[in-house]
């Protein structure tokens, strides 16, 4: 049974994704770390689907759809910001800091 190992691996991958979001400032790499976290969640869904039925795999399908939509809109925002500021470094994007 691979349930325990799969859940452990997905926990590790999710933590690495969180770490990446916390320690990087490049908006695109933060985006990649978000994808990494979504991927870890997908691994959890698939691992539990093996025990509890295929509904988990259907949810992975939905997660992938949302990830694709999120990537498209997110990159549109990043490109729009880059036109104004000539940077994707989050340190220089402090309009909301007051």
């Amino acid at each position: 049974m691979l349930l325990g190992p799969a859940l452990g691996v997905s926990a590790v991958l999710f933590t690495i994704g969180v770490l990446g979001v916390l320690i990087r400032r490049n908006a695109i790499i933060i985006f990649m770390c978000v994808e990494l976290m979504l991927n870890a969640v997908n691994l959890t869904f698939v691992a539990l689907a093996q025990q509890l039925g295929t509904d988990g795999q259907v949810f992975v399908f939905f997660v992938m759809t949302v990830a694709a939509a999120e990537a498209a809109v997110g990159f549109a925002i990043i490109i729009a910001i880059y036109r104004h500021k000539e940077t994707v470094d989050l340190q220089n994007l402090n309009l909301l800091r007051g």
Partner: protein
Amino acid sequence: MLEAVFWVHAIIAIGGALLCVTRRSPVASALWLIVTLFATAVMYVLLDAHFIAALQVMVYSGAIMVLFLFVIMLLNLGDQLATDMKGWFGRVIGLVLGVFVALELWVITSVAPVDQIRLPAGELVRMAADEGAIGMVAQSLYTTYLLPFLLTTILLLAAIAGAVVLAKRRV
């Protein structure tokens, strides 16, 4: 044997994720993320999710990662001279918070599903033989989850329209 293959790809996935987070160049990060996604696809196959594994390779490491690389090259961010890592203070805070997340996840993942709702061993393999690897997912996707499935089409349409509106220049 199965477990050995699983662990090899688990290590590849974790190593790729670590390198993805720590590389300075966004292109290198994206390529290491693709390594992680492929290793995860192998784990999906070992967990009897063949259709999801194919989707992972086509949609994730195909379409979405091409979008990443496309934007990196469009904005010409390929060679970063200075690192974009936070300073030691930010790193320590990040590490502490990461350890907390890891501990919480450790508690959650140590819980196994109760035996009453658990399928008999090899049930998914039997279903795949009966209905096909795609059929067993499509069965509930087009019946139980028909409404969410239709709503995702609206989500994708909104995402496409939103991306065009956000990224286009002033006319």
